[in-house]
């Protein structure tokens, strides 16, 4: 009996696959249908709108791609079971224009109407994200403007070469902003996403640069022998956590952006990497092999004592933090080669409770959204790779395929 109980508990614990679990009662979400009034049907745009509504955690979007006149208030009888109908029209000529009307089904009134235009045809996904986040705001749901932000990532192209790419969160929009050379570890420098830090590995020593994405202006921040990574940026942008090795030893340092001076945060004769500001930013969480394998630790910025955060797994080699929340990747299998199972776990600095967010495949690079409510991660399963998102509150999840080369590092 005891074994059966243990089995049931185990099954329940590890059934929390973010790719299938829908914990929030669907009845609590707003039922909405989409009616496309565009003269040229764009099914991909419809799918993006649907995805936006889903990952918001606030809407239950009808899967049917309905067609209808955007100017008419007429609603098909089949839509009467919905609470809202979004009528939209996408027009692409020299640029792109999106018209939306949100109708309340119960009385047919127009709740919201807006027109969006952008000069680029490539940035259509951002129109969908902006429209859905505006509708979310109009209906007074918690903010989801994270979906309007860029994702920035580095990917390898050929041995010794990489590129840094901007994308929307669905990866339907992608643009290479630095091509050629070996430029790695992009990290947003400010909450407005005007500049980012990255490491150039094109010389004898790695160099950390800050680059403006609109002007291309770049500023050298610091350099180090061995390796150099900007792991985190303080919320006010004034300090950075770096992994660097001025004496050939990878440790965590804090850089003052205005004076460009660094102070050493960890001092260990092994591997200390991936520092992230924790709690009120007076402490950090990081990855270290001080127990003989990669695991998650924390320490006060100005004290020497280090404490272990995670007590399971034999290879926990990536971490991110938001306030007291901590998310990390843990290797579940012990194969020396081939694909290992890596899962993402959520814990906190002030609690021992831990819950898995994924259960299958190789899940890596967990990153909190700017509001701490969504986790971005990469998933490899079989021959395919995807970018995944988990809404921590509603536990809604989404996967979008990543075509092409391996992601080296990612931020959003």
């Amino acid at each position: 009996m005891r074994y059966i109980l243990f089995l049931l508990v185990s099954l329940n614990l590890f059934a929390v696959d973010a790719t299938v679990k829908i914990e929030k009662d669907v009845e609590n979400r707003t039922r909405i249908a989409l009616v496309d009034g565009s003269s040229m049907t764009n099914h991909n745009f419809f799918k993006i709108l649907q995805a936006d509504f889903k990952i918001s955690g606030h809407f239950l979007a009808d899967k049917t791609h309905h067609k209808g006149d955007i100017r008419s208030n007429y609603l098909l009888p089949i839509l009467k079971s919905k609470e809202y109908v979004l009528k939209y029209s996408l027009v692409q000529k020299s640029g792109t224009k999106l018209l939306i009307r949100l109708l309340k089904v119960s009385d047919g009134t127009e709740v919201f109407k807006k027109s969006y235009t952008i000069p680029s045809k490539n940035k259509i996904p951002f129109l969908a994200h902006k429209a859905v986040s505006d509708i979310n705001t109009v209906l007074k749901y918690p903010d989801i403007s994270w979906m309007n932000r860029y994702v920035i990532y580095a990917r390898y192209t050929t041995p010794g070469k990489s590129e840094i790419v901007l994308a929307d969160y669905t990866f339907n929009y992608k643009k290479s902003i630095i091509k050629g050379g070996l430029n790695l570890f992009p990290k947003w420098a400010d909450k407005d996403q005007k500049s980012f830090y990255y490491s150039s590995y094109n010389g004898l020593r790695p160099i950390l640069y800050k680059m403006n994405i609109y002007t291309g202006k770049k500023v050298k921040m610091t350099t180090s022998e061995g390796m150099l990574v900007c792991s985190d940026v303080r919320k006010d942008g004034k300090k950075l956590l770096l992994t660097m090795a001025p004496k050939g030893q990878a440790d965590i340092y804090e850089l003052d952006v205005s004076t460009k001076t660094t102070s050493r945060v960890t001092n260990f004769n092994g591997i200390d990497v991936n520092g992230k500001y924790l709690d009120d930013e007076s402490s950090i969480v990081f990855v270290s092999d001080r127990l003989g394998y990669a695991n998650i630790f924390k320490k006060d910025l100005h004290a020497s004592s280090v404490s272990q955060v995670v007590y399971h797994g034999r290879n926990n080699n990536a971490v991110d933090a938001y306030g007291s929340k901590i998310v990390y990747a843990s290797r579940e299998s012990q194969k020396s080669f081939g694909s290992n199972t890596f899962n993402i776990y959520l814990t906190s600095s002030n609690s021992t409770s831990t819950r898995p967010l994924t259960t299958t495949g190789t899940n890596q690079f967990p990153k909190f959204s700017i509001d701490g409510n969504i986790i971005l991660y990469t998933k490899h399963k079989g021959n395919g790779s995807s970018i995944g998102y988990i809404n921590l509150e509603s536990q809604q999840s989404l996967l979008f395929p990543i075509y092409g080369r391996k992601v080296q590092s990612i931020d959003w």
Partner: protein
Amino acid sequence: MIRKSRIIIVTMSAMLCMGCSQKAPDLDVEEGTNNISDSTEIARDTVAIDENSYGNENTDGVNGTKYNSSSDGFQSIYFGFGDYSISSSMENHITTNTNVINSTSATIKIEGNCDEFGTDEYNYALGLKRAKAVKDSIASQGVAESKMVIISYGESNPTCTSPTDSCYEKNRRVDLRLVK
């Protein structure tokens, strides 16, 4: 006459009903004032920089396009999975490399590399530990540390890309070359 009157009444009623239908919304009224670019930077164009076209700050040929294994008479040092200790089978490579260093006045670049199974920062730190282990081993044979510079390329510079064990072994290595 009666039929004609009925037709007129029906037609007028139909026209009246059409007039009663809800007014088509003016969809263009907010265009421009509520443009997406008013509230976000998304509409602004971003740069596209091609470092292949105008070069880097220091292209000394150390990255993969010219060569991605040891050169200049040096021999690469290979490591076990997740390991950064030098095995006894690699000691003769260390000796060979020390002899090459002693025969030149040039600075030596020692590059740590990994297979593809680590994650971003940790893999680069592992490559660095390998490079540091080789540097320390050569230094223990009397070579000045100031003559050697180490760097980690993580998993970015594979010599072999097939999904086989023997291929992965070739990527867990430290390369040495002269800084020219």
